[in-house]
C-alpha cells in the first residue's frame, strides 16, 4: 500500500472544481494570443475583443478533459519508458532555469555558464534518485535567443535520461522540437516515444500570455508533452487562502488544457505548477514553506479527481547556502510531494527561490528523495509469518541472533535504503578521523567522485553530428562563430564545431 497524504475531502474538491468553472466564466481568463482566442471562440467561448478576456463555458472544458491522455511515458535515449506520468507514480528531477550556481569554494552565487549546466547534468546522470534531467540553469555564455535551445542541446548530448525543459519563445519551441526529432529519428518517432516535456506557465491571476498560449498550441500540434506550471502566489497574485489559491490554480490549468486540447485533441498534457505562498515580510515566494507544499498536495488531489497526470515544484529551499534550513525545507517538502503521489517533482538542487543551483545540494537532496521514495514504498509484507518464523531452535536470546539468519541477508536491502556517504552514521572516532566533515563537505567529496566517474553517453554518430550542426546554425544565426568550448572530455565534440 502506497501511503498517501490527503488534505482535501471529496466535498471540498467538488467545490473547488465548481468555483473554478465559475471563475472561467466570470471574470473569465485573459488570453493574449489570437489563435488561442480563436480556438476558444470557435468552440463556443465568448471573447471580449477589447480586453482579450475569454469567458469559457464548462462544457467546453469538460470536453477537453475527456480527450486528455490519462497516462503517458517519457523515454530515455535508448527508448526505455522511464518516467510514468499518470496514477500515483512518483519521480524527481532537478529544478529548472536557475541563473546562478553555488560555488562550493567561495560560497558565492556564480552566474551560470555552459560548464555549470554540464556539471549538474553529470552529477544528476549518476544519481538514480533522479529519473529525469532538467535544463537546470541558463547558460549566460550564449546569446539570449538560443539560451533555451542550447540548454536542451547540452542535456541531449550529455545525458540519456528523459528531460524536463521549456522554451523561452514561440520560435524556439519549434526549434527545440526539431532537436528532439533529430535524435529520435523524425517527428513521428519523437511523438511516439517522447524524450522531453516542456513547462508552460500561465501568469497569475488567470492570464495565458501570448507566448505561453503559443507554446501550448505548438506542443499540442507536435504531440510533444506539455506541463502546465501554474504559479498562484497566495496572498499576492492569488487569494490568500490555500483553498482560494488552489481554486485559481484549477481554473488556470483547466483553461490551459482547453486551449491545448482544442489545438490537438489527445496530445499529452500535465496538471502542474509551482504554487507558492507570498511572504508578507519580504515580498518573496518561499518554496520551502510548508504552506507551499500544502498548496501542491491539494492541487494534486484536484488533478487526481480528474485522472490527470501531475507535476509540482518541491524539494527546493530559500536558503542561500546548503545549510540546515536547506536540508529541512528540501527534505520535508520532497517528502510531502512524494506522499502526495505527484508524478514529477522538480526543484531538487535549488536554493534562493529557485534562482540558484548547487551540485552538492543535488547529492544531499538525493538522500532526501531516497527517504521519501522508501516512505512511499510503504511497510511491506515479505514473509509468511510476520515474526514467529524468525525464531527457530537456534535462538539463544542473544543480540546478534538475527544477523546470522540467511533471510536477514536476503531482505535487508529491500527493507532498508542504504544511504550514500553523504549521510553520516559513523562512530564519533571514525568521523573525526575522516576529517570531521559536515554534510556539505561530504557532498563536495561525492560531487568530485561523480565528476571523475562520469563518462559521456555514446550516441548514434550521425544523429549527434546532425544535432551539432543544427545547434551550430542556431548559434551562428544568433551571432556566434562557434559554440562555447566545453571541457577537455569533449575534444571529440568540439571538433564538430569546426566542421
Amino acid at each position, binding site marked *: 500500500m502506497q501511503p498517501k497524504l490527503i488534505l482535501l475531502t471529496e466535498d471540498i474538491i467538488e467545490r473547488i472544481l465548481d468555483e473554478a468553472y465559475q471563475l472561467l466564466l466570470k471574470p473569465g481568463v485573459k488570453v493574449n494570443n489570437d489563435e488561442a482566442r480563436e480556438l476558444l471562440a470557435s468552440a463556443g467561448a465568448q471573447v471580449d475583443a477589447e480586453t482579450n478576456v475569454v469567458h469559457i463555458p464548462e462544457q467546453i472544458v469538460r470536453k477537453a478533459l475527456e480527450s486528455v491522455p490519462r497516462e503517458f511515458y517519457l523515454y530515455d535515449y535508448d527508448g526505455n519508458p522511464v518516467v510514468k506520468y499518470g496514477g500515483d507514480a512518483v519521480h524527481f528531477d532537478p529544478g529548472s532555469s536557475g541563473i546562478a550556481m553555488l560555488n562550493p569554494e567561495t560560497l558565492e552565487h556564480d552566474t551560470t555558464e555552459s560548464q555549470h549546466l554540464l556539471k549538474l547534468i553529470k552529477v544528476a546522470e549518476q544519481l538514480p534518485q533522479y529519473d529525469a534531467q532538467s535544463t537546470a540553469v541558463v547558460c549566460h555564455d550564449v546569446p539570449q535567443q538560443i539560451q533555451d535551445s542550447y540548454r536542451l542541446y547540452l542535456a541531449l548530448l550529455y545525458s540519456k535520461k528523459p528531460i524536463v525543459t521549456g522554451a523561452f519563445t514561440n520560435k524556439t519551441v519549434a526549434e527545440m522540437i526539431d532537436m528532439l526529432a533529430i535524435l529520435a529519428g523524425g517527428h513521428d518517432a519523437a511523438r511516439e516515444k517522447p524524450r522531453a516535456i516542456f513547462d508552460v506557465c500561465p501568469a497569475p491571476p488567470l492570464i495565458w500570455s501570448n507566448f505561453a498560449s503559443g507554446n501550448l498550441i505548438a506542443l499540442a500540434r507536435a504531440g510533444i508533452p506539455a506541463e502546465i506550471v501554474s504559479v498562484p502566489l497566495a496572498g*499576492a497574485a492569488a487569494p490568500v487562502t490555500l483553498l482560494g489559491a488552489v481554486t485559481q490554480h484549477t481554473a488556470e490549468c483547466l483553461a490551459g488544457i482547453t486551449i491545448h486540447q482544442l489545438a490537438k485533441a489527445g496530445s499529452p498534457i500535465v496538471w502542474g505548477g509551482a504554487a507558492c505562498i507570498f511572504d508578507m*515580510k519580504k515580498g518573496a515566494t518561499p518554496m520551502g514553506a510548508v504552506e507551499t507544499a500544502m498548496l501542491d498536495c491539494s492541487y494534486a488531489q484536484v488533478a487526481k479527481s480528474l485522472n490527470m497526470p501531475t507535476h509540482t515544484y518541491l524539494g527546493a529551499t530559500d536558503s542561500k547556502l546548503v545549510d540546515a534550513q536547506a536540508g529541512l525545507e528540501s527534505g520535508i517538502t520532497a517528502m510531502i510531494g512524494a506522499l502526495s503521489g505527484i508524478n514529477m517533482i522538480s526543484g531538487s538542487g535549488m536554493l534562493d527561490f529557485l534562482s540558484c543551483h548547487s551540485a552538492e545540494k543535488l547529492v544531499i537532496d538525493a538522500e532526501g528523495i531516497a527517504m521519501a521514495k522508501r516512505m512511499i514504498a510503504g511497510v511491506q509484507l515479505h514473509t509468511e509469518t510476520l515474526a514467529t518464523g524468525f525464531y527457530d531452535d537456534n535462538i539463544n536470546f542473544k543480540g546478534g541472533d538475527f544477523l546470522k539468519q540467511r533471510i536477514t541477508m536476503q531482505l535487508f536491502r529491500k527493507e532498508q535504503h542504504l544511504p550514500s556517504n553523504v549521510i553520516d552514521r559513523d562512530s564519533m572516532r571514525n568521523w573525526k578521523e575522516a576529517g570531521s566533515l559536515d554534510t556539505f563537505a561530504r557532498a563536495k567529496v561525492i560531487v568530485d567522485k561523480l565528476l571523475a566517474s562520469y563518462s559521456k553517453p555514446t550516441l548514434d554518430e550521425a544523429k549527434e553530428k546532425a544535432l551539432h550542426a543544427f545547434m551550430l546554425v542556431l548559434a551562428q544565426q544568433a551571432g556566434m562563430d562557434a559554440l562555447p568550448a566545453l571541457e577537455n572530455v569533449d575534444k571529440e565534440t568540439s571538433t564538430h564545431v569546426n566542421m
Partner: protein
Amino acid sequence: MSEELYKQMAQSIIEGEKEIAIELAQKSIELNMHPLDTITKGFVVGVNYIGDQFGLGEAFLPELVMAGEAMKAAVAVLEPELLKLGEAREVMGRVVLATVEGDIHEIGKTLVGTMLSASGFEVTDLGVDQPAEKIIGKAIEIDAQLIGMSALLTTTMIRQREVIEELDKEGLRPRIKVMVGGAPITKDWAEKIKADGTSEDAVGAVQLAKRLLGKE
C-alpha cells in the same frame, strides 16, 4: 478637537481603513480645517508609522499596501480643496513606473508605486511589458524627474539598460533619474547599466527616490 481628529486620521491609515479615511477627510473639509494640515498632521503620521513598523519587521505587506491605498483615497478627497485654495501639497516628485518589455511581473513594482504615492510622489504606473519608447515618452509627457523600472527575469533585465542608453542618447539624463528593481537586480547590475540606484524593497525604494530627488 482637531488633535483628536488627526489621531483618528493616522489610525485610519494604520488600520488600512480606506472608507474611514475618506469620511475623516470629508469631515475635515466640513470643519474648515486646512487640507495641508489634515494631510501632514493627520494622515501622513499614519503612513510614516506603518512604514517604520514595516522596517522593524512588525508590520507586513498587506498592512503596508492597505495603508497606502487608504492614504491615496484620503488625499484624493483633499486635493480638490487644496486647488480651490490655490495651493498644492508639495509633490515630492513625478515618477513613471513600468515593468520592462517582455516581462509581465508587477507585484513588486505595484508595491513601490503604492508606497511612493503614499509618500507624496505623483506616480504614473504604466503597467507591465512596456517598451523603452513608451516609458521615455510618458516621462517626457508628464515631465517626470524619475523613472522606476522593474524586471523579474534575467532575460528581461537587459531591457533596463536599453532604456537608460536611450535616455542618455536623447540627453535626458541627469535631468531624469533612473532607479531599477526586481528579483535578479543587484547593486552591481545597477552600477553596470549606469542606473542611479536600486533598492531591495518598496520602503527602501521610497528612501532612494527621495535621495535621488534631493528630498531627504
